[in-house]
């Protein structure tokens, strides 16, 4: 039957701040998703945009940086207001290995946090790098610590933990912690560096990528990366595929389909 198979309107249960610019909204509804999978979030009358699922399952949630019109409108939604959700879409992280290194840069922690939860529930060893510009921006430190991950903090300005980029701290841990699988999400420049480091060491990895998404279902070509569609074949890709992308860290498409630098 032709019904709105795609979209579900759910009520805001709790819309609370994680940091000065990042909020988490919990929605009254169940949505099973593999960490790394995303949903298209419709703020009725405003915009619709992709967001990783940061809390899968019942009372599921997303964690979002307040950036432009869409996320600002979402940030202002009081309890009971309705948000449209379609998804989950795409390929999420697939847990492999026994000694895991995970890296979440900025709001890139959104899909990494539930990944930590699941890996720890499976009693796997998790070294986690949480990266941010400054200590106030660190996301999900408590959640990950409680889950039993070895948390390593990195801030660009050194206000907490390692001073420098998360990719640098991650590279150190590739050697010192001896992980057998690496999982990363964050700024593309960070991912490019971790891909290089993991490649050199021949340690398998997976990373979640971002591209401008319109349809979210693999038909509009707006999220194309070297002929691959991040919304469908991704957003999580394994190292072999990450290494082949000529455009990774170099160019992406803007909403008109023009190539712009990443």
């Amino acid at each position, binding site marked *: 039957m*032709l019904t*709105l198979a795609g979209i579900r309107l759910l009520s805001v249960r709790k819309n609370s701040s994680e940091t000065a610019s990042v909020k988490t909204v919990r929605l009254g509804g169940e949505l099973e998703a593999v960490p790394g999978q995303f949903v298209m979030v419709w703020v009725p*009358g405003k915009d619709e945009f992709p967001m990783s699922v940061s809390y899968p399952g019942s009372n599921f949630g997303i964690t979002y940086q307040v950036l432009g019109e869409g996320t600002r409108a979402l940030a202002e939604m009081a309890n009971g207001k309705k948000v*449209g959700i379609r998804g989950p879409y795409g390929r999420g992280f697939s847990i492999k290995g026994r000694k895991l290194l995970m890296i979440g840069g900025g709001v890139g922690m959104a899909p990494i946090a539930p990944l930590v939860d699941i890996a720890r529930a499976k009693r796997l060893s998790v070294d986690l790098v949480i990266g941010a510009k400054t200590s106030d921006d660190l996301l999900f430190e408590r959640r990950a610590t409680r889950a039993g991950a070895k948390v390593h903090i990195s801030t660009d300005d050194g206000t907490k933990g390692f001073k420098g980029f998360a990719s640098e701290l991650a590279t150190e841990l590739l050697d010192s912690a001896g992980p057998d699988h690496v999982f990363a999400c964050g700024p593309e420049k960070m991912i490019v560096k971790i891909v290089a480091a993991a490649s050199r060491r021949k340690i398998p990895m997976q990373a979640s990528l971002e591209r401008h998404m319109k349809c979210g*279902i693999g*038909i*509009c070509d707006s999220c194309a990366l070297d002929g691959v569609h991040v919304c469908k074949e991704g957003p999580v890709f394994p190292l072999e595929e990450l290494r082949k992308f000529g455009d990774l860290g170099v160019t992406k498409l803007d909403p*008109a389909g023009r190539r712009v630098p990443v």
Partner: protein
Amino acid sequence: MTDISVEVCGLRLRNPTMLASGVLDETARSMLAVAKSGAGAIVTKSIGIEPRSGHPNPSVVELEDGLLNAMGLPNPGIDLFSKEVKEARKGGVPIIGSVFGGTEEEIAELAGMMAEAGADAVELNLSCPHAKGYGAELGSSPERVETSCRLAKRACGVPVFAKLTPNTSYIAELAKAAERGGADAVVAINTLKGMAIDPEAGMPILGNRFGGLSGPAIKPVGIRCVYEIYESVEIPVIGVGGVTTGRDAVEYIMAGAQAVQLGTAVWIRGEKVFREVCREISQFMKENGYDSVKEMLGVAHSGRH
């Protein structure tokens, strides 16, 4: 495998399936991937003079048997896109450059530029139902369709296809106008103008409110249009609208289509749909004693009128 190659307006296609305009065809690399997955030809996203970001999201609504979309003709503009066309041609299948414009002259200019960029044929999108000023207004006037085709033919030396709208009383009149204007083929159909409202939100879902309905839901309308057009013009017809299986393709071919285009099917069955649909066509032909696609062409008309 049975031979399912076809020739349309002098273009030789290894099989009668084409990628429809607007689906995975904004970048050369995506088009190359689709060519690799078996499409007989590729129609590019509709391209205009200037870059355009398209309509605000949501731009797609998933229905159980189709899609409603209001992409709003996003495209990087013909200058930038020319490079993509050149690269896409390396896939070894014909590249049909789709263009849209607000006036007959603009459309013709774009057709010329598209041919110059290397397109093997040009498809005039005279039928986008949801981008104001483009498509619908121009495309539902036989006079303007005729002029668009005439000017486009003058502007380029490759075959010109006129893609028609089903949002009209008499699509056959539009097809005749295209033929008078010198179009080499007509393509039918573009999407049906539609809307979806979310009851809880109490508003239309699409950012543009109005969109175009595609997929299995519109197949009976597409079949009817192709059937009507086939009885009205001499030039080839290319069928599009809800083709998802080999049987759907055969239905279109029997209605009079020399080839078919697939859009929404890519969503339903993935890029592998081209290879699968071709296999299903061959299978059907084998079981029913057809040796070539041509033998099936228009058979649904014989003995009836």
